[in-house]
């Protein structure tokens, strides 16, 4: 029983789905961010697996770019969470509904 790329893809899909589910059901902004990281990592896994299957190094190069975006996003996102927390003493996104129609 050899591991085919499909196995890794399936694992990535499941991880991605778990992350998505987390975003939809959790209301703590921090947890939601972790879920975003989870989803990004799932995507990274597909890059690596596909790069291996196709014999291309570009899959791994792509991971670097995703990584940089993720890092930048975490920096800004956490800064926003801290800034919001300072004003509202809460990290719940459900309380941030100032844009409601």
């Amino acid at each position, binding site marked *: 029983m050899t591991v085919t790329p499909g196995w890794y893809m399936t694992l990535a899909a499941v991880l991605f789905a778990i992350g998505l589910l987390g975003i939809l059901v959790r209301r703590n902004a921090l947890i939601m961010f972790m879920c975003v990281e989870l989803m990004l990592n799932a995507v990274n896994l597909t890059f690596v697996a596909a790069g291996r*299957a196709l014999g291309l190094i570009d899959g791994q190069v792509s991971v670097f770019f995703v990584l940089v975006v993720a890092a930048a996003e975490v920096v800004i996102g956490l800064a926003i969470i801290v800034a919001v927390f300072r004003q509202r003493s809460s990290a719940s996104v459900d309380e941030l509904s100032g844009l409601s129609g």
Partner: protein
Amino acid sequence: MIETILFFVLAATSLAGAITVIAARNPVHSAMGLLGTLFSLAVIYVVNLAHLVAAVQVIVYAGAVMTLFLFVIMLIGVDKAEERDETLPYQRQLVIGLAVITCGLAIALATGSGFRWTPAAPAAAQAPNGTIENVAEPLFGEWLLAFEATALLLTIAAAGAIALAYFRRGAPEEVAE
């Protein structure tokens, strides 16, 4: 054979970590779960010969990003456990509905015959060896412009973070309500 064993072990640990992330009531537990997933993925990368990516995964994600998360968790309080009950109307039902549809789609794809995960690979595809040298060559050659753009992105992100964190201090509280 060894790869198969490793795959199942690592898949189990990474899924366990992921489920901890979304299930734990304490944010610190969630962070630990995420850490587990990240480490598992790093090992999977090694199995896939992506050595440099694995190293960066550990250093940047497990190191820097997770540290940042933990800092923020400490900053805004670890004792704030989240309520379990859903407050938004219909949110739970909608999510369940979406989950069912997604599962149905996945099953349909798995049992169907017309779907392939990857495009047809060349018969003699050699798994690329992700050493520093091999990764650096396209990164600083073909993709140099994109690399420079990400450098700019990071700089902007750093400046933005400073702006968000620093300029609020001392400024009058701008509470909307």
